[in-house]
Every structure is written in structure tokens, then in C-alpha cells.
């Protein structure tokens, strides 16, 4: 069996075109309902007041930050082990989305921290690990785009993503340890043990909106990457094809 390089991407493109409108629709729907519940239909918290509304974007963004990294590492592993071309592109396309969510988690966390703790930033274990996660995303993106041959960038970045995935628990553990040694005094435990159902609804809706958004934008990006690959292949054929082949061997028909 001859593995044709673009058989898979073409099938994927077809799949993507069917899913994409649904993902777009779901994103819009969840966003509108989520924002409605988050900003209008839910009460303020008795302890944190209205600032609790920041949680409805902050927590889902933090979830997505972790989720995207896991997805990226898994796609990278699939790309490395089974040499699946779409997996490489998926890993590569996930990184900027994950980085955006990570940035949002940090930014909204900071905006939440100011009224709650009276400071924009505390070196709390959770914030610190998310910050490092953000750096890992930046490193991945920089490496993936540092090569003239994008396939080479994807491979190098895939190894980095896996090394990072091994390191994330170690970093998390060490940051937790470090944080217990240098416990900042002002941290208020947020969330509390039981979360009220009126808060759960907007939280889940926003999480679903983010996830749908991820799928939607991911599909757009992968489609772009696949077509960019086709363009490079065509350009290379212009360069390397040279004069038309003299002897077209019969055994080399379309496989």
C-alpha cells in the first residue's frame, strides 16, 4: 500500500467543511446565552459581589489553557509516532489558540485579583504555573515558526511539546512547593467548597462557548495550513519539476 501524502488531508478538508458551520453556530449560541447568564441573569456573590462575574470567563479560559496544551501534546505525539500529517498541523494550529486562552486567563485573573486581593498580581501557585504555561506556549510557537521548512518546524516543536508535557507536572509540583514555602498573606481562597447552581450555569455555558470556539478556529487554521502546504508543494514542483519528465513509467500511475 502506498501512503499518499495528501489523501488524508483531502478527506479532512471535506470533514472540516461540514463541521465548521456547526462549530460556528455553536460558538455563537453558547456565547450569547453564556453572556446573558453571566452578565444579566445571575446574581452577584454574597462574598465577592459583582466581581464574581469575572470568574465566568476566567475559569473557562484557564481550563482551555490546560486543555489546549494537552491536546497539542497529544497531537504532537500522534504526528511523531504515526507520522500523521494532519496531527502535526493540528498541534501547530492549537498553539496560538491555547496561548490566547492562557493570556486571557492571566489577564482576567489579574483584573479579578485587583478588587479581591488589592493587587494586580500575586505569586500564587496557580497564577505562577499558568504564567509558565504561557511561556511554554510562546516557546512552542517560536520554535514551530523558526525553520524555513514548516514540516521541520512542526517536528522540532512536537518534540518540545512532549518534553514540555513531561515537565508540566514537575513544574506544577515545584511551584506548589515553592508557594507553600513563601505563602503570600493576602490570598483569599476563592470559589469556596460548594458552588451555587446559579453560578454553575453561566460557567458551563461559557466553557462550552470556548470549546466550540476552539474547534471552529482550529478547523479554520488547519484548513489554511493544509492549503499552504499544497501551495508549497506546487511551488516546489515548479522549481524541481524542471522540464517535463521524458519517460512516464506506466507503473507510476495514480496510486
Amino acid at each position, binding site marked *: 500500500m502506498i501512503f499518499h*501524502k495528501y489523501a488524508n488531508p483531502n478527506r479532512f478538508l471535506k470533514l472540516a467543511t461540514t463541521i465548521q458551520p456547526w462549530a460556528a453556530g455553536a460558538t455563537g449560541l453558547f456565547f450569547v446565552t453564556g453572556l446573558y447568564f453571566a452578565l444579566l441573569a445571575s446574581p452577584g456573590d454574597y462574598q465577592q459581589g459583582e466581581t464574581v462575574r469575572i470568574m465566568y470567563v476566567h475559569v473557562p479560559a484557564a481550563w482551555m489553557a490546560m486543555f489546549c496544551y494537552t491536546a497539542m501534546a497529544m497531537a504532537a505525539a500522534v504526528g511523531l509516532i504515526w507520522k500523521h500529517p494532519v496531527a502535526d498541523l493540528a498541534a501547530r494550529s492549537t498553539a496560538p489558540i491555547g496561548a490566547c486562552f492562557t493570556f486571557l486567563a492571566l489577564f482576567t485573573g489579574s483584573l479579578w485579583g485587583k478588587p479581591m486581593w488589592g493587587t494586580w498580581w500575586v505569586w500564587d501557585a496557580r497564577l505562577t504555573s499558568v504564567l509558565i504555561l504561557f511561556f511554554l506556549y510562546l516557546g512552542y510557537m517560536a520554535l514551530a515558526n523558526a525553520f524555513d521548512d514548516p514540516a521541520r518546524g512542526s517536528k522540532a516543536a512536537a518534540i518540545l511539546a512532549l518534553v514540555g508535557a513531561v515537565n508540566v507536572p514537575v513544574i506544577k509540583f515545584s511551584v506548589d512547593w515553592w508557594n507553600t514555602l513563601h505563602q503570600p498573606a493576602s490570598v483569599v481562597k476563592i470559589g469556596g467548597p460548594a458552588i451555587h447552581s446559579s453560578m454553575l450555569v453561566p460557567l458551563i455555558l461559557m466553557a462550552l462557548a470556548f470549546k466550540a470556539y476552539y474547534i471552529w478556529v482550529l478547523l479554520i487554521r488547519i484548513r489554511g495550513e493544509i492549503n499552504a*502546504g499544497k501551495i508549497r*508543494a506546487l511551488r*516546489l514542483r515548479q522549481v524541481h519539476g524542471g522540464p517535463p519528465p521524458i519517460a512516464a513509467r506506466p507503473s507510476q500511475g*495514480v496510486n
Partner: protein
Amino acid sequence: MVLFSGDNLRCFRGERTVFANLSFCCPGGGALLLRGPNGTGKSTLLRLMAGLLKAENGTIAWDGADIADEPEDHNGRLHYVGHADAVKPVLTVTENISFWAALRPQQAQISDALAAFGIDYLADVPGRFLSAGQKRRVTLARIIASPARIWLLDEPTTALDAGAIVDLQREIARHRANGGMVIASTHAEIGLADAEILNLDAFQLTEQAA
């Protein structure tokens, strides 16, 4: 009789198929000459034979066993001469050559290897003083300094003068007389008149098939 062979190879590199349906076969004492215009994959094929690249499809075998199964064993029986000379400027010629020989199970006399390419007078000269042609001779002396069955030579005559090419011809003949194999991509005459010729132009994919 041992056989170095490749079957139905297809190589995909830099987002294009370089060649496909390529097979080759080289017995002990044999020689294979790779021909074809630029970009048809001569270097690629040599790197594939060395095990630096993996074929998309097909296998390369030594004596029937896939070389990918025991890559270190395969490395032990081949010498590869690529475009770069790998001569360290701060090491002397002898140090340069003996480092590579020391990584291998069998070693010959370094002085003999130097003599074979007429650079014994350079033995203690650091690499940074060498001309391009002299560096090339050092690289070729490296493959004499430790015996190996397969020589993979990618344009070995680059920067060589006529005298050095004669030396190379003699060494290739000696290598083959001892049962060695030579696979080379070159347009120069290096004593491979009886070699089998593999024209890579014949293995290009046509536009609609690619």
C-alpha cells in the same frame, strides 16, 4: 554473496516526492554510479542508503535484513562522504582522522591512510591551514583509516585535483578488490567504468501522478 539492495523505494522530502519505485542492488566488489540532473535525488538516495533518511515506502536491506532493524550495525559497515568535510580547524590532520577511526571497531594505520592520499606531510598541521582540496583529501583518508564494506560517496571529487582523483581511483579499485562496494554520485571519471549506472531521472513522478 552479500548484497546491498533497495526495493521499491519512495522518498518524500521537503514536501515533494523526490523519487518513487526505485530499486537498486549492489553485490560485494560491485559499484553503483548515480546519475541524473540536479534535484533528482542523488544525495537523497545516498542519505537514504546511509540511514540518515527514512524512505516513505520500500526497504533497504543488507544481506536480506532491513538496515533499519539494527542501525548501529549498519553504521559500522558503511562510510559516508557528504558535502561537508567535518574537519575541525583546531585539530591536526592526524587527530581529525584518528578521532573518527577510534569510534569504529576496526582501525587501520593512520599513516597509511594519509599516504594513500599523499597528505602524510600534513599529518601535524591543524585543519584551519588546509585548502579545500586538502580538506577533501583528509575526508577521503578518513574512510581508509577504518575499513568498512560500503562506501557512499556524494560528489567525492569536489575540489580534488587530477592527482588526487588518481589516488581515489586506486583506492576504490583496491577497496572493490577486497570485496567492498562503492556507491557514488559523480560525473568525474573515478575508475568506475564497469559500474552499474542508476539513472535517477527514470524514477521521477509525472505531474498528474504526484
